[in-house]
Each structure stands twice: as structure tokens, then as C-alpha cells.
């Protein structure tokens, strides 16, 4: 499975934009077919995500883990790896952060960095295993990361009740105390009681750092060289195996951080029996964002908006909220078949010139 990389950010932006348009059109068609008015539907959808400060905050919070998981997948893509295991890494990262938050009675200023560190390490370790298997044994990361997802699923499944059992429930951990949560009062107030939290800033910082690493640093140069052509990288004396492991490690760290923003940010405990779907959505985010950090951030915000607004749409009119997921999936299909869009663009351009 070789991944092809598209360059030229203007072109990918156009493709992404058209994919979004087509996805929304397909969604409109579906809404119409099921007997509702697409315009009203979409109006409620966007209102639901944006109509109040609180809702804007919620949309941002919904986007936060998506930004990070998207960034994780995009980063791995850029370096030639398909990280389909962001879910498991998020779970592990989130678990480690929760564990630290629940165990160490430290002041916020010290505790938060520790939690973040734990999340990053948890995610990174979970990704290093497939990275190492890829580097050393050339085991395809798609399969190994999927296996790692399930392993983390079951480990958390048994570890949470065993060590961090909730007050009432076996199925989730104890609640993270306020002093250990990413939610901070000033933000909550600023956004009228939204659950937006410091995770958002962490995500934005991560986007900046990753963009900088990829474009400006020796490390990014090496990582991409290995991703694009590991034989040439080897020829040039770049340590290929180390870079593959490093790349997976960073991707895992990003996903792990994303897990922390979910479990000690948006939520206040970790639940068992669920692989966070945000990990898989990260693939969509990265695809729409053409694997660029900034692109992924915008894609995540857009998906966050859809996810955040769909409930309100469902509350207002009879459109099942799965429409949002359907729209996202359609967008991804169109992004995957961008050749079609490119041809369309060329055709239109050609016709214009012809006139």
C-alpha cells in the first residue's frame, strides 16, 4: 500500500472546498429524500453549532480532540505512515492523564503539565510498538495499529474498574477533580458555561509546532524524506528505522494529547467499553486537510461544527443526526476521488477558455 501525496496547497484547498460542497449537496439530497427541507435543516445545523457563545464554545471543544487526532494522522501520513490507531492512542493517553490526575494530589500548575506529559507518553508508547514493528520487521502499520486499538480497549476495560473505579459506576473512572481538569473557570465563563477548555490552546499550539517541525527543521526534513522514499533516505545516510519509530511516536503523542483533551477536558472521567470515534474521525480530518497541519485544523473545526450542530437540528426537525456523519463520509469519499473533482475543474476551465 503506497500512499500518494498531493502537493500544492492551493489545489488541495480547492479540492477540499469542492468536496465539502459536494458532501453538503449529497446531504441535502438525502434530507430531501427523507421528506424534510434541506435549507431549514442546514440552517438549524449551523445554528446549533454557532448560535450562542456557549454553543460556539462547545463547537470549539468538540473540535479540539479532532484537531489533535487529525494532526496525528496527518503527521503520520506526511511521513509515509497510515496511523489508523489514533483511537487506541487517545484512549491510552487519556487513561494515563486520568491516572495522574486521580492519583497525585498536586496543585493545578504542576499537575496539569504532568497530566499532559503522561498523556503524551501514553499515546507515544502505544504508537511506538507499531512503529518499531514497521521499522524492524516491516509489519504494515494498518494492521498493527488496529490490533493495538483493541489491546488498549481491553486493558482500559479492566484497569479502570480495578484501580480507578467510579463512585457509583464500574463503567467509568472516578471524576477528575476540578483542580486536575483542563476546564478553567475563566474560559467556562467567557463562553457562557461551555465545556471548552485549555485543550483548545494545546491543540492550536500542537498545530503550530508540528507545522514548524515539518517545514522548517532538520527533523522534519528527515521525517518527510523517509516518508516519501525510504530507500533514498537510507542512501543519504538518514537513519530510516529511527525516523519511522520517531514519526509514529510523535503521531501517537499527538493522539495521546487528544485523548487527554477528551477525558480530562471535555469529559471529566474515562469510560470503558468505548474506543473513541474521534480517532477514526482523525483520518477524515487529515484527508480533508490534505495532511497539512493548518488544513487539518480547519477541517477539524468544520467537522466539529457539524457534530456540534446536529443534535439541535434533530431537536428542531425530523432529521436523524446521522446525517452529519453521512455528510462527513461523503466528503471523504469525494476527497478520496479528488481526481474526479480535478477533472471537473479542468473541464470547467477548459470550457471557459473555449468561449
Amino acid at each position, binding site marked *: 500500500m503506497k500512499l500518494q501525496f498531493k502537493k500544492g496547497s492551493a489545489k488541495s484547498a480547492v479540492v477540499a472546498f469542492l468536496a465539502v460542497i459536494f458532501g453538503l449537496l449529497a446531504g441535502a439530497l438525502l434530507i430531501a429524500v427523507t421528506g424534510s427541507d434541506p435549507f431549514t435543516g442546514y440552517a438549524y445545523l449551523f445554528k446549533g453549532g454557532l448560535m450562542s457563545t456557549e454553543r460556539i464554545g462547545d463547537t470549539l471543544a468538540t473540535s479540539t480532540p479532532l484537531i489533535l487526532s487529525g494532526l496525528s494522522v496527518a503527521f503520520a501520513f506526511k511521513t509515509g505512515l497510515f496511523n489508523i490507531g489514533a483511537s487506541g492512542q487517545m484512549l491510552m493517553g487519556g487513561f494515563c492523564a486520568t491516572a495522574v490526575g486521580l492519583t497525585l494530589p498536586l496543585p493545578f500548575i504542576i499537575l496539569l503539565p504532568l497530566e499532559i506529559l503522561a498523556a503524551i507518553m501514553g499515546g507515544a508508547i502505544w504508537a511506538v510498538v507499531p512503529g518499531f514493528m514497521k521499522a524492524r520487521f516491516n509489519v504494515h502499520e494498518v494492521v498493527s495499529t488496529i490490533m493495538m486499538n483493541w489491546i488498549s480497549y481491553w486493558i482500559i476495560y479492566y484497569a479502570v474498574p480495578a484501580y480507578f473505579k467510579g463512585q457509583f459506576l464500574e463503567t467509568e473512572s472516578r471524576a477528575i477533580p476540578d483542580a486536575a481538569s483542563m476546564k478553567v473557570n475563566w474560559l467556562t465563563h467567557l463562553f457562557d458555561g461551555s465545556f471548552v477548555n485549555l485543550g483548545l490552546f494545546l491543540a492550536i499550539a500542537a498545530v503550530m509546532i508540528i507545522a514548524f517541525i515539518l517545514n522548517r*527543521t532538520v*527533523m522534519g526534513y528527515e521525517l518527510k524524506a523517509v516518508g*516519501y*522514499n525510504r*530507500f533514498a533516505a537510507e*542512501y543519504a*545516510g*538518514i537513519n530510516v528505522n529511527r525516523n519511522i519509530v520517531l514519526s509514529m511516536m510523535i503521531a501517537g503523542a499527538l493522539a495521546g494529547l487528544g485523548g487527554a483533551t477528551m477525558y480530562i477536558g471535555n469529559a471529566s472521567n474515562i469510560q470503558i467499553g468505548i474506543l473513541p470515534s474521534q480517532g477514526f474521525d482523525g483520518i477524515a480530518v487529515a484527508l480533508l486537510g490534505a495532511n497539512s497541519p493548518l488544513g487539518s485544523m480547519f477541517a477539524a473545526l468544520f467537522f466539529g461544527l457539524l457534530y456540534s450542530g446536529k443534535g439541535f437540528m434533530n431537536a428542531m426537525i425530523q432529521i436523524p443526526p446521522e446525517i452529519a456523519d453521512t455528510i462527513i463520509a461523503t466528503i471523504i469519499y469525494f476527497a478520496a476521488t479528488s481526481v474526479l473533482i480535478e477533472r471537473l475543474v479542468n473541464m470547467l476551465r477548459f470550457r471557459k477558455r473555449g468561449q
Partner: protein
Amino acid sequence: MEYVVEMLNIRKEFPGIIANDNISLELKKGEIHALMGENGAGKSTLMSILFGLYQPDNGSIRIKGKEVRISNPNVANDLGIGMVHQHFKLVHNFTITENIILGIEPKKGLTLDLKSAAERIRLLSEQYGLNVDPYEKIENVSVGMQQRVEIIKMLYRNAEVLIFDEPTAVLTPHEILDLMKIMKNLVAEGKSIILITHKLKEIKAVADRCTVIRRGKLVGTVDVAATSEARMAEMMVGRQVSFQVDKSESKPGEIILQVENLSVLNHRKVLGLKGCSLDVRSGEILGIAGVEGNGQTELVEAITGLTRIESGKVLLKEQDITHLLIRERIEAGIAHIPEDRQKRGLVLDYTIEENMVLEVYDRVPFSNKGLLDRDAIRNYTDKIMKNFDVRAGEGAESFARTLSGGNQQKAIVGREVELNPELLIAVQPTRGLDVGSIEYIHKRLVEQRDKGKAVLLVSLELDEILNVSDRIAIVSNGELIGIVNAAETNENEVGLMMAGVRKGESN
């Protein structure tokens, strides 16, 4: 005059390039017709049209006087046209029989009838002296054998017209002779052949007529016997070319590279290079002659660090580099023009400028404290592109993928030379290039030598080795057979040694 194939006024355009512009070619029954032209001239395209892989935008094709539309290879097969492609089209884990019958499988009921197919293949093989084992797997046979499989594939389909696209590029001198014999057999049995090749000597040896094309346009068709090699070459490139590399006497100095008793495992985990010892001095070009797969790759990879050394030593300027990392060897003064420019030489999805610092990006001035310096990289790239005449649409910012093969190669040569190495290893530096580019690259190799550097040249082209090297080391079956002075040897002697005959043994 009866023509088996007439291609008339063929035109084929690819996005941005007219690969065939009004080309006509006529093939007589029972002749070997050479098709010649520089790289990218449009030879393969023309033949792909005849074979039904492409549809012409314009023009017509007649087979035995009848106008036909060849919409796909099946139609070509039915018309008795077969093609041996530049790159063999064989499935590595199929047997020879399975490869040959693919697409026209004989059946017993629903089940494949492999037995009767194998029997027919054995008979064909005997008839034309091809000597293939129907049950052997492709991955276990030599390149020459694979080519013979391709030939049987055509014969099995009762082809009357056989197209060979650069068939000799991958063969040893001995295999080339065999192939020529086979081709003569084929025409004697009434087949007609179109032979694409860059090698004038081969055209002289077997072809009756020769059609030359240049940049998609027909230059002309000549009678081979009546035309000199120089004239044909001129037709091809549109100017006079010298085949001789101008160079002065070499002035060898101190030993730069010393290889002692080197043994290396190949990818099949057996010794691919056995106890090889040689040295290269400053101011000389040492050529490695040998048939493909006889230890050259292992030797080069062992020196550059791409492969682990089983036993023995490699010294660079008396420093033992046997266990150094690749990057450390580059820093110690080894530069390497790799055999496969697209696989090893370039990151195709990087721009030229990113490719130009592939080995030095982490050095000052290209980066500082882990941060890349774009300006420094740009200046460096511009310099290389100017010095080595690398042409690309968007200059330093062009993606390597968009460059033509020749320009890709020039960029790599420029990059490696610019490292200012003590030892320059050039592996097949002119593979698949046209004569103009070849000439250029040879000049740069000699220039390195004249600057007092050591050059190790590995090539499968005997002519190149003989023309460019000062001394020639011949390898066969992983062993060093001998080292001769270029000035004192000839093709015959080297060819014999490549076949494993040590000097003096033959008489």
C-alpha cells in the same frame, strides 16, 4: 514490394508533448528492421500503438495490406503481432508456462490445462533453440532466460511480427550474441522483426533497414549495409557525435580506496561477493566490468554502507571505514551516484532544492541548530543546476518527479560531485540516457579524475567501461577475475573475463 506492417502518418499526443508526429514505418516480410532515436524520441510510443496499448490520434495501420484498428493487445495478438517490452512483463511467482499462457489459457472443461501448454512450450523451445524449462518459476531464472520466455510468449501466440523494445540493454555480451542468433533464426522461419535499440553496433550486426526518429518526428529510413554508424548517429541526434571520450593520460596518486578481502551476503543470504581485494588511486578511474548480478551491487553497497559486510575491510585514505554508518562514510569523503536514480537517488516528492541537500541538510550553512536555512539551500541548488545544466520547468522549486530522466541524472551527478568527494562511485551513471547526456556525464567523470579524485565506475555497458576507465576490474560470479589496463585490453578479452575466464587461462 510486400509489407507486413505499414504504419502511416501516425500521430500521438500526450499532455504537453507530441510523442509521435506524423511518423510512418514500413516493415517488409522477413526483415529485421531497426528503430532508433534518442531517449523520449517516441519509439516505445510508436510500438505501443502498433501493439494496441495506445490509440493513435491520427494515421492508419495496415497489416498485410489490410487497414486495421488495433484497439487492444488482443487484437494485436490476433493479427500476429507480438512485443517484448523494454521492461519484461512477467509475473515473478508464476511458472514460465503460466506466464506464457496468461490471457489465452487452454482449458479442459473449466480447469486450466497446464500440461498440454507446457508440452507445446517445450516443443517451441526446441524448435528455436531457446532452452527453457516450462515448470520453472520466473523469480528463479536469469534475465536472459526471462527474455526468452517473452519470445516464446509471442511464438506461442503464433506471432508473425515480433517487436523487441531495447532487448539488449539488460543482457551480457554473450547473451546478446545468443539473442542475435535467435533473431536470425526467427526471420529465417519467416517472421519479421522490429528492433528498438540505441546501439549502433547491434543494428549493424543484424538489421536490414533502420528507421530513425527524433523528438517525435521521422528523420528517415535507411539501408543499414549502406550507411555508416556515424551517419546513423548523426541522424539520431541531429549533430555529429564523438564516441571517443577525450581524456589525457591518467596520473594516479596515493591510494584512496582500499578494499581488502571483502565478502558480502546478497539479498538471498548467500555470498554475493567473495574475498574481493582492490584499490582505487587518486587521479584514476577504475571501471568495474561484469554481467549484472555478479557482485557489483554488493561491492558498492558494502563500500557505501548500504549493506552489512560479512568479512574483510574497507579503507578510505587509510582510515578503516568498515563499520562506519552511511552518513559517516559520506562525511569521510565518499559520494555515490546510485544505480536506480528514482529508487535511491531522489526523493521524487521533494523539490530539486530539497534533493540537492539530501546528504548535507544538517550541515552549516544549510541548517543551523536544527533549523533549515532556505536561502542557503536555494543558492547551493542554483549553483549546481547552473554548473550541471539541469533543466526544470520551475527551477529549483520543481518537484524532482517532473524532471526528465536525463535531467534527474544530471542533478544527481551534480549533487554528488558538489560534495567534493575523495571517492566518487558512479553506478550505471548513463543508464537509459541518450548520447548527448552520456557524453556530458562522461566528461564530468573524467573531470573529477583530473582534479585528482578517485572514481569508481560500475557499468554494464562494456563500451562505457572501456572508454572511460583507466583500469578495469572484472567481476564474475562474485569474484574478482582480474584487473587490466584499459589502454592494453580490448572488448574480447574483457568479455571473456566477464564470463569467468581468467587471463591466460584461455590460451
